[in-house]
């Protein structure tokens, strides 16, 4: 009888009703409602089903009490160090403070800003040398590691969490989803997805009409406005950066930036980003209508010139060179996007191109969806800040759409009405959904108007633009 009782006590249902549980029953129920809504959007409404469905299922797995498929503490809590609003936080905070108190002591030996902490290695070395002790940066790091296990100091005195410590923990004690989540933690999935996207994307409309790049740039406005608004609402700069990038309407970019800047917000940001991408046909049209006149919507654009194979081959190489030399932090996204594109356009690596745009991207999409969804458990999802993230994400998206439209409108005026401003809204990256919305909107006002190829220009420019914006955030805030 006691065996049956013990068995019943271990069931998820018993844990759900348990008063000792950290997550309350209402929180589980609220999460199931949200998960149900995501399943509905993915399966019935067919909104981004390839991603929303694995994300929703990952959320379901993460919110089954007792299943313990993912241990977020391995990634966020166990070895976590951060500086938020000038305060050292995270599980390593106490050890770091011990190090400061016992070893550094003086203010000039370290720099603490609003969101960063670093040991002034040169100052420490000079002071010890002056006292007759010969020490090096390596010695300081050794001493640091005696105080702070699981982390190390680099040559510039900045603290890093040892990845090997996290990986070791996952291998020894982790579950399936923990192992899958390593792909997010290490930044592998977003880059591989970008490679597949690059292999599937035709950059010819952009090469034929390079003016489109301006609309792609204008459509990043929402990213930075949302960043500013998030700061006003009390988010830290790193969190604000991760929230702002939702406006880029690019899932992999949002995930890469968030895992670097604010990994604890990954679930909410990924869900917001992919949901808004799926809702483009609903979100964009009212603003497209608001910011354009009837006459502008009927503008027919001239046919694009043909693009030679040489141009198609040179384009990814040159874009990689230019973008990655100016913003090296954008390299994981832009580099892989362009590698995928080169595999395709070169015509000599068909097998690799087909793999990148089919099997590889499909496998990674499943892994990414499940592991991102699994980060959204009730404890870290049902918070006021999630509502703020969803609200700010929507705002970022709308402002980005308007930014692209305004640039399109200006270009329409400057070219004497040769550019239909409706293609400006396609600057928000989400390929090819945003371009399709421009096409549909144009045809609604003139059924003989075909804007799709013209809209693909700003659309693919938006992919590059959002990767550049991500690189800006990573270089500024990391």
């Amino acid at each position, binding site marked *: 009888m006691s065996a049956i009782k013990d068995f019943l006590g271990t069931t998820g249902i018993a844990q759900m009703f348990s008063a000792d549980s950290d997550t309350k029953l209402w929180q589980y129920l609220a999460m199931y409602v949200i998960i149900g809504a995501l399943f509905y959007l993915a399966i019935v409404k067919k909104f981004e089903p390839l991603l929303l469905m694995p994300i929703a299922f990952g959320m379901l797995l993460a919110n089954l009490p007792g299943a313990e498929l993912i241990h977020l503490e391995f990634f966020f809590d166990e070895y976590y160090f951060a500086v938020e*609003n*000038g*305060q*050292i*936080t995270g599980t390593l*905070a*106490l050890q770091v*403070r011990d190090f*400061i*108190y016992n070893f550094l002591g003086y*203010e000039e030996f370290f720099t*603490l*800003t*609003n969101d960063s902490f670093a040991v002034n290695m040169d100052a420490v070395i000079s002071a010890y040398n002056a006292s007759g002790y010969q020490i090096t940066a390596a010695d300081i790091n050794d001493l640091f590691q005696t105080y702070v296990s699981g982390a190390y100091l680099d040559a510039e005195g900045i603290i890093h969490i040892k990845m090997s410590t996290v990986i070791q923990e996952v291998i020894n004690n982790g579950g399936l989803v923990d192992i899958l989540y390593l792909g997010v933690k290490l930044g592998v999935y977003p880059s591989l997805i970008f490679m597949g996207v690059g292999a599937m994307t035709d950059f010819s409309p*952009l*090469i034929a009409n*390079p*003016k489109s*790049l*301006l609309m*792609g*740039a204008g459509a*990043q*406005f929402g*990213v*930075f*406005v949302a*960043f*500013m*608004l998030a*700061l*006003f609402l009390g988010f830290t*700069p790193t969190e*604000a950066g991760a929230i702002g990038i939702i406006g880029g309407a690019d899932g992999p970019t949002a995930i890469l930036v968030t895992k670097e800047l604010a990994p604890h917000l990954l679930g909410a940001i990924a869900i917001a980003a992919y949901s808004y991408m799926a809702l483009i046909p609903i979100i964009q049209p009212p603003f497209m209508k608001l910011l354009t006149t009837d006459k502008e919507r009927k503008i027919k654009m001239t046919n694009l*010139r043909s693009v*030679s194979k*040489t*141009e198609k081959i*040179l*384009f990814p190489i*040159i*874009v990689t060179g*230019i*973008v990655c030399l*100016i*913003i090296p932090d954008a390299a994981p996204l832009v580099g892989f996007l362009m590698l995928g594109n080169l595999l395709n356009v070169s015509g000599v690596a068909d097998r690799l191109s087909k793999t990148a745009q089919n099997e590889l991207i499909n496998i990674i999409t499943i892994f990414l969806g499940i592991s991102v969804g699994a980060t959204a458990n009730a404890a870290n999802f049902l918070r006021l800040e999630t509502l703020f993230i969803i609200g700010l994400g929507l705002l970022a998206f709308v402002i980005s759409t308007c930014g692209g439209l305004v640039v399109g409108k200006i270009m329409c005026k400057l070219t004497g009405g040769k550019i239909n401003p409706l293609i400006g809204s396609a600057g928000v990256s989400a390929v090819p959904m945003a371009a399709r919305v421009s096409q549909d909107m144009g045809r609604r006002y003139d059924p003989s108007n075909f804007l799709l190829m013209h809209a693909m220009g700003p659309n693919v*420019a938006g992919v*590059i*633009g959002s990767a*550049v*914006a991500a690189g*800006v*955030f990573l270089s*500024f805030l990391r």
Partner: protein
Amino acid sequence: MFDSIDISSSIINFESFELGQLGSAFLYGGSVLLIGMATVFAVLCLLWLCLAIFKLCFHTIPERKAKKKKVAPVVQVAPKVVEVKKPDDGEIIAVIAAAIAMAESEDSGMKFRVVSFKRI
């Protein structure tokens, strides 16, 4: 950035941190917005410049050359074109047939068969 640090407390505090204030948040956010947008526009404009050079090198100049070629030789080449059509097709077919027969012969290592001829 800060005036004093209270190391003895469990959390390090400093008194005059600027970003905590709304005005400073605006300044910081505004500067990131301006620098960020300027960077995005600068990078994409640089790409525009490259693509403009692409157009010049791979489209405009070759097109001009092609046009020139087309216009100039028309007068001179025209008679030649007529001449080219004149030669006896039978003679050419005979030469090709001989070459094929040679290739198909037992001495040749090649193993192929001509199924049809198509006039181009």
